């Protein structure tokens, strides 16, 4: 928590302040990426604004207990509440590619779920400007249906217009590269094929803001290369991306900014290389301090 860095700061990233790693971030030099070297030089409204966010879980409902123990804890009125996120503020400008890193159970996925509108904040506010596309974990396909049926179903869940989907189906199938399997039941698909189809559906729906949770680093070499190319395309189109990953190389290579989430709030925010280095140093020093347990209210 006390890292000597500006904590939970919504300040602009400081990529330009970091000359020694500048040459490694080639993709960012492409057009469409906002020059976000100078803080406050925003253009237009922020894409994502999170103000003092808190998301609370009730362990009473999530933990599977026996009826008797549920009842007794209810009587004792000991509400076991848990803040997955608390006091988190973040501002993301259009075109930024933000990596969210941190230990397991720090609240990264909860943050993304809140941005996607899947979870509601318990306190604070979340404002997201633009169409959101989210791929949080391996896509939950219906394995009894064909790939084609799943594309239609998943697109309906995402609220994609039917005509738009119709026009894009071929493109989705091509990017997923599952060949003749597209009309076979998804039970017959390999893990890689499922992952490709999921990313393919989520990215072709034209989101202004793309939220990705641990999905870009799966799959074989070829798929990774392809999804990289796709993300690069989206960066060029000034799409905002917030992604959770444990792949630090990814962070360094593709993101314009990195934030470290620990125990439900942001403890570091800045240029990817710098933040990653700092995070890895800290991870080696104090492994015990990152335990997410014991935060009861």
């Amino acid at each position: 928590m006390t890292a000597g860095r500006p904590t939970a700061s919504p300040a602009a990233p400081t990529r330009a302040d970091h000359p020694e790693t500048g040459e490694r971030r080639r993709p960012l030099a492409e057009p469409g990426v906002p020059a976000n070297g100078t803080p406050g030089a925003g253009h237009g409204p922020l894409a994502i604004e999170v103000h003092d966010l808190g998301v609370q879980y009730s362990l009473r409902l999530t933990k599977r207990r026996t009826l008797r123990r549920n009842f007794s804890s209810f009587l004792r009125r000991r509400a076991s509440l848990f803040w997955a996120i608390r006091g988190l503020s973040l501002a993301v400008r259009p075109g930024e590619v933000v990596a969210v890193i941190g230990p397991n159970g720090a609240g990264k996925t909860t943050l993304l779920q809140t941005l996607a509108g899947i979870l509601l904040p318990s306190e604070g506010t979340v404002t997201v400007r633009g169409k959101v596309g989210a791929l949080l974990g391996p896509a939950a396909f219906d394995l009894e249906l064909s790939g084609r049926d799943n594309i239609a179903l998943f697109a309906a869940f995402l609220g994609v217009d039917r005509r738009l989907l119709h026009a894009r189906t071929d493109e989705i199938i091509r990017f997923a590269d599952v060949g003749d399997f597209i009309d076979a039941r998804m039970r017959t698909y390999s893990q890689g094929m499922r992952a490709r189809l999921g990313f393919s559906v989520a990215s072709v729906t034209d989101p202004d803001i793309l939220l990705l949770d641990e999905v870009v680093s799966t799959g074989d070499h070829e798929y990774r290369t392809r999804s990289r190319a796709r993300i690069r395309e989206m960066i060029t189109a000034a799409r905002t991306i917030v992604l959770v990953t444990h792949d630090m190389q990814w962070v360094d290579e593709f993101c314009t900014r990195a934030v470290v989430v620990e125990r439900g709030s942001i403890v570091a925010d800045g240029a990817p290389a710098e933040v990653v280095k700092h995070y890895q140093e800290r991870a080696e020093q104090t492994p015990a301090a990152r335990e997410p347990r014991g935060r009861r209210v």
Partner: protein
Amino acid sequence: MSTLARPTPVYVASPRRPTAADLLRQTVREVAAHSDLVRQLARATMRRAGAHTILGNVWWVLDPLLQMPLYVLLVGVILRSGTPDFPLFLFSAILPWKWFTSSLSEATSSVATRDQLIKQVAFPKIALPISAIVAVVPQFLFGLAPLLLMMGLFYRHRLSAFILLVPVVAAVQLVLSLAIGILLAICNAFARDTGRLTGFVFRIWFILSPALYSSDRIEHVSGRYPMLGIAFRLNPFTTLFESYRAVIYEGTFPSFIALVAVLLVSLGLLATTSIFFKRLEPSLAKIL
């Protein structure tokens, strides 16, 4: 791209407890906006239903047909309390009841089984029980085929134009199914005991409804047990079965006053359970 021309959607979330009226309005708006999702989900459910069977959707026709001789044997032959043309008398109640219970069992599991999706995508969860119930409607329609065949072959004297009123009665039943299905879906998400419990409740409900016997029996029983008489009268399936029988078996008009009463109660119930569902909806991604 055409997407650029559209105004940017802005999503603002803050902890605010909406009123019941807000929730109801929101539900109507969401379901209308996601009619495509309901359709796609219903289609997926129907495709999945026949996936692992050889006969596939033929079961929709076979199921009520196979159930009927069972009851004919039990009530008509062993208990000897049948009515004239007893198979038809039974079928006109078993078919809608079968539809009702499969609708509700599909609806009950609809939310709990989509846990992964609920944690990954923001969508109106109420579409899940609604589409589950919509997906079972064709089963009922297919079940009408053996009914018509049976009437054409054996009970031609009972066939009348009143049979065209079946969709009217079915529509009332559909509203009732939606109301209860939405309630069961959200309850089952929080406590899986719901599925077990409803199986038992449905069996009692079936026995307390005039499916295997005619409603004359109700008068007979309520004379001795007044409480049972009240239960019979409050039971919407008393009205529904009587209505189905009126149009299929007896060839008369159903009691429209009773049907409208059931419809109004069902609509009220539907509004209530939708609000209840909507109120608990935000917790779903956390508890599943």
